[in-house]
């Protein structure tokens, strides 16, 4: 059945989806007690505009900041670009829209380049090279 979406299903997004799902399941398991004993996770589907996925947590009757921050913490990943959180009080559910990065590697590559940029900009590196080249001249400054 064709999906009317700007993003096609890729291998990476499928991996990210299953990873997020498993971590959300684990987190929900820790909070299923008291009034939230029937809490369950459901996958709504892919988003239309960006590469992402929508998850819903049903039967949430009591909500606290600890629970929300735990869920939010799960989305602070290399492969999660951004996420939205909606609380539907009428239907007792929390909806998370998770947007994935293009690829995990692209994100990491950017990170390495950032580190490399700062290490090459370090003046100590260039002073060290000068010291190796002509120690008598440049070590006299120290």
């Amino acid at each position, binding site marked *: 059945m*064709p999906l*009317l*979406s*700007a993003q096609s299903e890729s291998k990476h997004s499928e991996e990210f989806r299953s990873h997020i799902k498993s971590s959300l399941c684990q987190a929900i398991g820790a909070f299923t007690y008291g009034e939230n004993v029937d809490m369950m996770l459901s996958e709504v*589907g892919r*988003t239309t505009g960006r590469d992402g996925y929508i998850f819903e947590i049903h039967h949430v009757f009591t909500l606290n900041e600890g629970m929300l921050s735990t869920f939010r913490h799960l989305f602070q990943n290399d492969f999660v670009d951004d996420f939205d959180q909606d609380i539907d009080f009428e239907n007792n559910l929390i909806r998370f829209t998770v947007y994935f990065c293009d690829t995990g590697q692209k994100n990491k590559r950017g990170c390495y380049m950032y580190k490399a940029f700062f290490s090459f900009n370090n003046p100590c590196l260039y002073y060290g090279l000068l010291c190796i080249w002509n120690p008598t001249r440049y070590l006299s400054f120290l």
Partner: protein
Amino acid sequence: MTDETPPTPAGLKALDNEDRAVITTVANKLQEKHKDVIFSTKVLPSRTLVNFYNLNALSIEELRRINICNHRIKKLEIHFSSATLNLTLWKKEKPPRAKERKNVGTNETKNMKRAVTSFVEKQASTIRESDERVIRAVLRVLLRWTWGSAASNVVCHQDGDRYSFTAKNLRTVSFKQLQELVELGDYVQGVRVNIKEKCAAFYVERTTSYIQENRAKRRRT
């Protein structure tokens, strides 16, 4: 003849007369086709929310009849997850607010175009070249319904001069959105929403002008 008026249902007693009249009218209209329809109300300081349950399918004509019955009906939405028809009655006029023009970014427009193109390419065997423009317009409306939310599965079948569309996996659809689809032109017909199956279905007819043009071409050759 008796002067006795029918007793007011207990649930309606909390409502003021105006709200009660609107809800009764809408409920009567719905009961003509859906016998088991029930409703719940929530009275808020600014508005009254009414949810109708036990509805199977609704056509655009039924929704239009509900919408025109009173000027205080501000929102008419179908929620597929809870299988309800939600009605919002404003008590007071909304305070005038400066209208904010929504600027759709170029990126979004590009993404929409890309999504529609990829769908049309996938359905190339079903969609005729002469009908592509109409189908693209219809798909753009469907995409706007679900933009920023879960993508819908769209099934398109061609049967002679008629394309039948079914949009599944919808979350909500409002009367305004359905109206937007109908306003595309006479091509779009038979818009109906199946609440139980969580889908919206409609037909797209090939216009008579297309058919006549094709016939004229055939005659010439």
